[in-house]
């Protein structure tokens, strides 16, 4: 290229480079969320603030969860330009707090969160580190049983199963088979394949019903808590279902889509299934029920970082406004995630959509568990999941308690090694 063409091209290039640069003004607040379906909810909250902050421009930027986590990691570690409200699961936020990348919440917000009439202790804890409030709880993911009432009636079963033994019984009775005895409709759809920690999480939910836990807490340290009779009971349930009685197999359709197609009679999942089913299978006859002992709860909180002091104040006000009962009720009704705030009257929603009952009308002694806020939690879940996937497909484990316990012990050793590497293994 000759010199003159090159320099002309360079000038054009620089001009184009700066084109499309999008910057925010001082009065802008950006919301980074990992759940695109919440856009409508955030927009409503923003509108409700337009009276108090007429110049406020709230920019809602939700994106898929995996990419959201990446975006937050990069943004926080290099510093955020605009005042940004970050929607984060408590355990993820912990990482940033521990590295001084998220600052404590201002006093007004602290008071709001610490008020027992606003949030139960469980949710307050998720927003705190060492007693200091860093964020505002907003909603959570929580599990419950979904069951097809038509299929239950056809099998002569009254009401949902209430103990793990009943789950096994129901699964066997509800499985429909073909002439060769292979299941065509699974009694109880289990998460048996696919990637990542989700498999371990689902296992943990069952483990929890047996009174067990994946990780035992001991002061500030942890150890693997599943290589025992509880873990064995949970693993046995899976192995028997897949390889023993064969109420479900790895190749069968699973999860919400299978439930909506009536290819499975029951499964455990979060509240988003209700909205999804209303869209895709509105004529499905189903109900929900609470789990025998308790459920996983994955609380999501709102944190604020970056931007001018003015914008930050507006951002915190937004976080508190997001907890106004009218917005929370709208969220439950239209999106399906469960608000964390206490004392909100959801009866209107539950009356119109009774399936929400199993998520909000909980027995007094319902025990929640959540993912511990430790750095290696994802790795522990993913590696455990790999062992589980192999165990589920292993027919030789049927009736072989000793072998199953070995599998759990081997994995527990790995879990403890990871905890040790992170310096938080309990002695």
């Amino acid at each position, binding site marked *: 290229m000759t010199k003159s063409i090159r320099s002309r091209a360079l000038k054009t290039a620089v001009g184009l480079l700066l084109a499309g640069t999008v910057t925010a003004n001082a009065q802008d607040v950006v919301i980074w969320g990992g759940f695109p379906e919440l856009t409508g909810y955030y927009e409503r909250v923003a509108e409700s603030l337009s009276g108090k902050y007429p110049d406020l421009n709230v920019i809602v930027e939700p994106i898929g969860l*995996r990419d959201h*986590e*990446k975006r937050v*990691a990069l943004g*926080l*570690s290099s510093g955020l330009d605009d005042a940004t409200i970050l929607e984060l699961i408590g355990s993820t936020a912990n*990482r*940033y707090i521990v*590295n001084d*990348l998220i600052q404590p919440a201002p006093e007004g917000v602290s008071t709001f969160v610490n008020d027992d009439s606003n949030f139960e202790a469980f949710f307050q804890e998720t927003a705190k580190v060492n007693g200091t409030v860093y964020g505002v709880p907003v909603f959570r993911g929580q599990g419950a049983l979904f069951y097809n009432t038509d299929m239950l009636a056809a099998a002569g079963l009254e009401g949902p199963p209430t103990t793990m033994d009943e789950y096994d019984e129901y699964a066997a009775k509800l499985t429909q088979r073909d002439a060769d005895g292979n299941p065509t409709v699974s009694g109880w759809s289990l*998460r048996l*394949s*696919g*990637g*990542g920690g989700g498999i371990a999480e689902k296992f943990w939910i069952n483990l929890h019903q047996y009174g067990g836990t994946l990780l035992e807490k001991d002061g500030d340290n942890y150890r693997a808590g599943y290589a025992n009779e509880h873990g064995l009971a949970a693993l046995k349930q899976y192995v028997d279902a897949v390889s023993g009685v064969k109420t479900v197999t*790895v*190749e069968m*359709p*699973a*999860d*919400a*889509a*299978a*439930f*909506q*197609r009536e*290819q499975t009679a029951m499964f455990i999942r979060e509240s988003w299934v209700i909205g999804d089913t209303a869209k895709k299978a509105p004529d499905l006859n189903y109900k929900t029920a609470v789990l025998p002992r308790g459920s996983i709860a994955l609380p999501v909180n709102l944190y604020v970082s970056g931007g001018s002091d003015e914008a930050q104040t507006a951002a915190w006000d937004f976080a508190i406004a997001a907890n106004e009962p009218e917005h929370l009720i709208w969220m439950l009704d239209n999106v399906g995630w469960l608000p964390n705030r206490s004392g909100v009257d959801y009866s209107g929603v539950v009356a119109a959509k009774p399936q929400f009952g199993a998520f909000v009308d909980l027995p007094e002694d319902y025990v929640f568990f959540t993912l511990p806020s430790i*750095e*290696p939690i*994802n*790795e522990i879940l*993913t*590696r455990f999941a*790999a062992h589980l*996937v192999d165990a589920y497909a292993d027919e030789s484990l049927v009736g072989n308690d000793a072998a199953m316990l070995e599998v759990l012990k081997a994995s527990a050793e790995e879990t403890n090694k990871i905890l040790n590497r992170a310096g938080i293994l309990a002695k």
Partner: protein
Amino acid sequence: MLRRKQFWFAIMAILPTFAIFGWVRLFPIIETLRLSMHEWNLLSKNKPFVGFQNFIELFGDNQFMDALTNTAVIAFGAMAVTIPMSMVLAAIIYHRTRSRFSGFYETAVFIPHVVSLVPAAMAWKWIFDAKLGPLNAIIMGLGGDALPWLFDPVLSVICIIFLVSWQTLGYGVLIYLVGFRNLPKSVFEAAQLDGANGFQSFLYMSVPLLKPITLYVSVVTLISGFNVYAQAYVLASDTQGAPGRQVRVLVLDMLENSFQNFRVGYAAAEAVILLSIVLLLTMIQFGLLRGKGGR
């Protein structure tokens, strides 16, 4: 003297490109590779030096070994499918250049290369479906047994090879087509006069003459194969309530280690191992596929 002048011209001419490379590629990559000897959780200010600890740990990490094996199989599998198929397809399309359908052929072969994978994957999940997919239907029609394509550890890898090849075929065909078009006509005219038919001239003349192009397709397919990620991710996701087995591949392992396990140094060590292996394989390919002039 002439050589000197040429040398300086070469250096000067390549300098701007090298400078850009240095800034956007070499510098970040060297940074990343340097991290392989450190421990860093992406967020903290300190990155302690740990020597070869990451590498030692990697060799005992069966998830990493799994990923390495799977990725290697996928890469070689994709190469084995793509190179011959794209060369043959390109030869046929080139032969039919004057047909009014040539545009359709080229476009049809290329489109899979540019389509978004997530929505396309649903079609693939159906194709591979154990009970209801057309692939098993064809196999059973031919007298075989239905296979659990998406769940078996070996078969699921083959599914990914299929998916990768589907997308790289168009790439290969485009490159070979250009190669065919640039072949010197005179040599072929002479061969035809000597009585060679189409197939013979293809096998004994085009293929050797296209060695430099084959080297390109081979190296690129191998490197891209080792970088496979989206295909594995998409087949394991549970769209339509039909999850597949998650085939662990290297990029998945690296991304998990960086962004979910927050062990950037560890992921960087994986990158170093990947670089060494693939660089070695690439050099071998250069050795094997030397065109005329020894290059």
